[in-house]
């Protein structure tokens, strides 16, 4: 489980350090203070381990990958690495790398950096003697005479090591072996980062892509039963089963009701958004799921039932959750359900100063309760 996240130079953020991450992490705060950017920074870091976008979002745009997705998910302007990458950098200044530090406990950490001159995020080579010893072995095997100290980054996607802009391709196995030696539990960390999923508000309009990319796996694991259950329990839709029905020259996911069958696209927004959470979360194992404003379109009843089932699922599948929210109802519901299920939860109040610095305030559920007793709402913590 991720315990610390540090971000430098990404979007509007110059500096942000979040300590004490828990199983469930909520980010609250005013608009334009960096909550979504924190989720995006995590997703960007995950691109160092898996570059392609797992849900094939923005696949129609140049080079479907996580970077293109991040470039376009806010504006949808068809930006590419070549045209628009600067929008990821603080004040569009690409001279310094965007840095993300991720930690698992006190000792295990990785720095991920994105440079203007290479479109894959790179893993920083740790400044430890063990790392250099390992790297020297790799370099010697490949006949390179430079000292290991000169080689600063690793690109997993290209299987290369980098010395500033110069790169040298090595065998993937060799590289992974070096990484395993340099960072304990690298395989576990890498797997966690690779599997990371981002459920954002835009997904509600991309049911087709989700179906195409996930439905096979969902059916294979019979997770479709879970989707049926959430529709029944959370949204009082009398679903008997899910099926695919022809629609023009294609097929679409449909919901079998007692007297008719309707396309999933034609369900209400709340039920569809919840279906999407579950289609993504049902397949997540030993990783993190990033959710942007899960309360969107949700009636409190549907939200409560969805949360109850979601938390059950993530507990079973060892998933860490990072969610942004503006809803006090959501915070109260998830705090209550997390408490019942004995899952750790932290709320972070995110407030960015005029220099782009974020120093989150961490609140345990008890703190929210205490603030409420004073008449203070956790979403307005900036007043004090």
């Amino acid at each position, binding site marked *: 489980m991720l315990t610390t996240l540090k971000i430098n130079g990404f979007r509007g953020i110059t500096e942000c350090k979040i300590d004490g991450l828990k199983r469930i992490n909520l980010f609250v705060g005013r608009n334009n203070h960096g909550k979504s950017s924190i989720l995006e920074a995590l997703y960007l870091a995950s691109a160092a381990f898996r570059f392609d976008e797992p849900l094939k979002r923005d696949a129609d745009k140049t080079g479907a990958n996580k970077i293109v997705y991040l470039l376009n998910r806010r504006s949808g302007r068809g930006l590419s690495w070549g045209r628009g990458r600067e929008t990821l950098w603080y004040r569009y200044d690409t001279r310094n790398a965007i840095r993300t530090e991720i930690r698992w406990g006190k000792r295990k950490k990785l720095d991920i950096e994105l440079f203007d001159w290479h479109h894959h995020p790179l893993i920083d080579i740790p400044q430890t003697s063990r790392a250099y010893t390992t790297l020297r072995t790799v370099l010697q095997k490949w006949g390179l005479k430079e000292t290991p100290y000169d080689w600063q980054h690793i690109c997993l996607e290209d299987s290369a090591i980098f010395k500033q802009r110069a790169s040298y391709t090595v065998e993937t196995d060799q590289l992974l072996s070096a990484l395993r030696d340099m960072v304990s539990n690298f395989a576990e960390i890498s797997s966690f980062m690779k599997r990371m999923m981002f459920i954002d508000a835009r997904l509600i309009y991309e049911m087709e892509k989700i179906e195409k990319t996930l439905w096979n796996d969902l059916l294979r694991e019979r997770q479709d039963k879970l989707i049926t259950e959430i529709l029944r329990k959370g949204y009082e839709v009398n679903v008997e089963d899910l099926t695919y029905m022809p629609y023009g020259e294609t097929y679409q996911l449909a919901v079998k009701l007692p007297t008719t069958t309707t396309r999933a696209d034609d369900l209400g927004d709340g039920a569809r958004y919840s279906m999407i959470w579950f289609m993504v979360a049902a397949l997540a194992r030993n990783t993190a799921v990033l959710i942007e404003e899960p309360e969107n379109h949700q009636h409190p009843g549907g939200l409560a039932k969805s949360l109850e089932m979601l938390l059950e699922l993530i507990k079973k599948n060892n998933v860490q959750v990072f969610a942004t929210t503006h809803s006090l109802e959501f915070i109260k519901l998830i705090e209550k359900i997390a408490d019942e299920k004995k899952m750790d939860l932290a709320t972070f109040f995110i407030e960015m100063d005029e220099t782009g610095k974020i120093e989150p305030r961490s609140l345990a559920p008890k703190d929210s309760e205490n603030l409420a007793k*004073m*008449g203070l709402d956790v979403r307005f913590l900036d007043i*004090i």
Partner: protein
Amino acid sequence: MLLVPLIKFSRDQLENLILIARDMTKKLRVTILCEGDDDINALKVLIDKMSIQVSDNIGLNDCGGISRLEELAPIVATLARVSRRLEKIVLMVDANTQLPGQRVISLKQSLESHQVMIENLEEISGSIYKANFEKLDFLIKIVGKTDLPFKSHEMEDYAIHLLVMRGEIEERELSNFHKASEFLDQYGKKADMVIQESQKEEIARSYENVINLLKML
């Protein structure tokens, strides 16, 4: 007309939401935690009536129903830990059945049990105590007039003192009441009403220490 922008937080969450959401510029430097709505109303009237000048936005938090220190301490601990802009936290704590000196020590111990290790605790004026916790100043006022014949002492004691001083009631009428608020309930007046209908000089005498505290903000 109030001289300063007092921001009253009630126990009605919706009311607070509307209050804050409609003015995003509100930031608090000082917050006063009181033990109920009546105390807040009395303070507001007191500030207005006595033309007390305080320099910035002040929050008035109704912690009504929380009279036990064990319940108040975790709330104060949360506030001290999560606030970034507050410079002063003012606690208006009923003396109840304790003497002010005993009461403030009990409060200190309760706060310590919630990891708020207040330092440099000292009495700076009649039952007004000052202490520090990290960058925060604490001002603690143990409220109540222990010379009144009640078993338990609270903010309403000052209003009773005013009524006695004005000759509206006699002290012997109080003997059957456990605390001042019980008497006021039966008398049909709230403390803010008593302040409102009194002369400045009379208020200054009865509420002297509370006024001193407010002038420190």
